[in-house]
C-alpha cells in the first residue's frame, strides 16, 4: 500500500475536524498573546542585579510556551483518542489494516502540523516580543538564539507526539488528558521545586525538553542541569519514542 495515500487520508482527517483548528489556534494565541503581554508591560528597572546579569530576552519570548503547551497536549490527545471515542477506529483500520502504517501516518501528519504551528508560534512570539522590548531586544542572529527559537517549535511538536503515544496507550480522551496535564504542568514543576526530587524532575520530558529554549544558562535563577540543550532534547526524544512504541504495542495487541 502506498504510504503517501495514508498520509493524504490522515491529512484530510486532521483538517476536517473542528478540534484541530481550535486547539492549534489556542497554542498560537495563548503563547504569542502572553509573550506580548509580558514584554509590553516589562519594566527593566524592577530587576535586581542578579536578574539583570542573567537577563534572557529570548526566554521572555518563549516562557509563555508553558501556557500554550496545554492546548498542544489537548491537540495531541484528541488526534488519537477521537478515533476511539467515535468508533472511527474500526472504519479506519478496515481501510488501513496495517497498524504500523495507520499509526505512523497519523503521527507523521499530526506531528508535522504541530511542528509547523510550533515554529510559527515560536518565531512570531520571538519577533513580536523583541520588537516590544525595544532596547533590550535582540536579533535572531545572536549566539544560540536561533537554536532556542527553533527548539521551542521542536519542543511543541515532540510534546504533541508524546501525547499521541500516551493517548494510543490509554485509548480515552479523559484518561489521557487527566494524566498528561498534571504530568506536564504540575508534577514536573513540583518535583523540580523540592531539593530532594530535583534530579528526578530534571529528567522529565518537559524540563529536559524545555532546556533547549534557554539561551542564558541561569536565567531567572533556573537550576543547573546535568545536560546541555541538545542533551535535554535527546532525553525528551527518548521519552517520546517510548510513548510511541507503547502506543503501537497497544494498538497491535488489543482488539479495535
Amino acid at each position: 500500500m502506498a504510504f503517501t495515500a495514508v498520509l493524504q487520508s490522515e491529512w484530510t482527517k486532521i483538517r476536517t475536524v473542528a478540534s484541530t483548528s481550535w486547539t492549534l489556534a489556542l497554542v498560537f494565541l495563548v503563547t504569542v498573546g502572553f509573550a506580548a503581554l509580558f514584554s509590553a508591560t516589562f519594566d527593566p528597572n524592577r530587576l535586581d542585579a542578579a536578574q539583570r546579569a542573567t537577563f534572557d530576552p529570548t526566554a521572555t519570548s518563549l516562557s509563555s510556551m508553558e501556557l500554550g503547551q496545554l492546548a498542544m497536549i489537548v491537540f495531541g490527545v484528541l488526534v488519537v483518542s477521537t478515533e476511539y471515542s467515535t468508533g472511527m477506529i474500526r472504519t479506519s483500520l478496515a481501510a488501513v489494516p496495517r497498524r504500523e502504517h495507520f499509526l505512523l501516518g497519523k503521527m507523521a501528519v499530526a506531528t508535522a502540523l504541530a511542528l509547523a504551528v510550533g515554529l510559527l508560534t515560536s518565531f512570531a512570539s520571538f519577533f513580536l516580543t523583541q520588537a516590544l522590548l525595544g532596547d533590550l531586544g535582540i536579533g535572531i542572529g545572536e549566539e544560540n538564539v536561533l537554536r532556542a527559537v527553533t527548539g521551542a517549535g521542536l519542543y511543541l511538536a515532540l510534546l504533541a507526539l508524546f501525547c499521541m503515544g500516551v493517548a494510543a496507550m490509554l485509548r480515552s480522551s479523559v484518561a489521557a488528558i487527566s494524566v498528561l496535564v498534571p504530568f506536564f504542568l504540575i508534577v514536573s514543576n513540583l518535583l523540580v521545586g523540592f531539593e530532594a526530587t530535583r534530579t528526578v524532575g530534571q529528567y522529565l520530558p518537559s524540563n529536559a525538553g524545555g532546556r533547549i529554549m534557554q539561551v542564558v544558562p541561569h536565567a531567572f535563577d533556573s537550576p543547573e542541569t546535568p545536560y546541555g540543550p541538545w542533551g535535554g532534547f535527546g532525553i525528551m526524544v527518548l521519552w517520546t519514542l517510548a510513548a510511541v512504541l507503547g502506543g503501537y504495542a497497544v494498538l497491535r495487541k488489543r482488539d479495535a
Partner: protein
Amino acid sequence: MTPTTTTAEQPGSYSSPLATPRPHLGHALASEWTKLVSLRSTLWTLGSLVLIVVGVGLAVVAQTGDEDFAQINFTTPALIGLLVGQLAVIVLGVLTISSEHGTGLVRTTFTAAPDRHRVLTAKYLVFSMTAFVTTTLSVFVVGVSAAVVRGGSASGPHAAGEWFGALLGCGYVTLLGVLALAIGALVRHSAGAIALMLGLVTLPPVIGGMLSMWVAVEPLGRLILKYNVPVAMMQLFGLQEGGDLGPAPSNFSHLILILLVTGAAVAGSYVVVGRRDV
C-alpha cells in the same frame, strides 16, 4: 388531586399495583449514589486521590523530623499530595455530569425524572459530600499520623486552628470539584471541560509567576499570584508564601472568592440545564 388518582381517572385503563410515592430529593440522592459507586472511573479518581495524598504525605512525614513541624502544620505534608490530588476531584466532578451527556444516559435520566433541578441538586450534593469526605479523611490520616509520629516537644505548640484550616482546605478542594461539575454541565464535553478546569487550576500560578518576576508593578500579577488555587491551598494548610507580595489575603477571602465563582457557575448550570434540549 393525589398522584394515585391520575391513572384511575381513565375508565378501563391500566392501574399499576406498585405504590406511587411523590418523588423527592431523597430518591434522587439514592439514585445518584448508585450511579457514583457503580462506575470504575469513581474508583480510579478517588483511589488516586487517596493514594497520592496519603502516599506522598506519609513519605514526607517519614523524611522529616519533629523540629520541622515547629514552623509548619501537622497537616502540611498532605498538601503536596493534595496539590496533585485535587485534579482527581476535578476530573470526577466533570465526569459526574459530562459522562451522562457523552453516553446519552442523560435522556434516560430526564425521561425518568423530568424535574431536572432535583436531579442536578442530587448530583451536586452526592458529589460534594463524597469528595469532601474522601479528601478530609485522606488529609486527616496524614495529619494525625504526623501529629502522632512527630508530635514530640521539638515540634512546638500546635493550635486547633490549623486543623480547622485544613478542614477549610478540604472544603476548598470540594468547591473546586463542584465548580468542575458546573462547568461540565455547561460545556457537556468531558475532554473540553477537564482541559478547561485543569487550565484554570494550573495556569494562573505560572502566569502570575511570570508577571511577578518581570512586571512587579503590575497589580494584575500580584493579584493573580495572591489569589490562585495552589496559593489558597498552601495558605489554608499553613504554608505561607514568600512575604514580598505584601500582606497575604485572609483564609476567608480565598473561600469567598471560590464560593462566588462556584456559586455563579452553579446558578448558571441550573438555568441552562432546566431549559436545554438534551
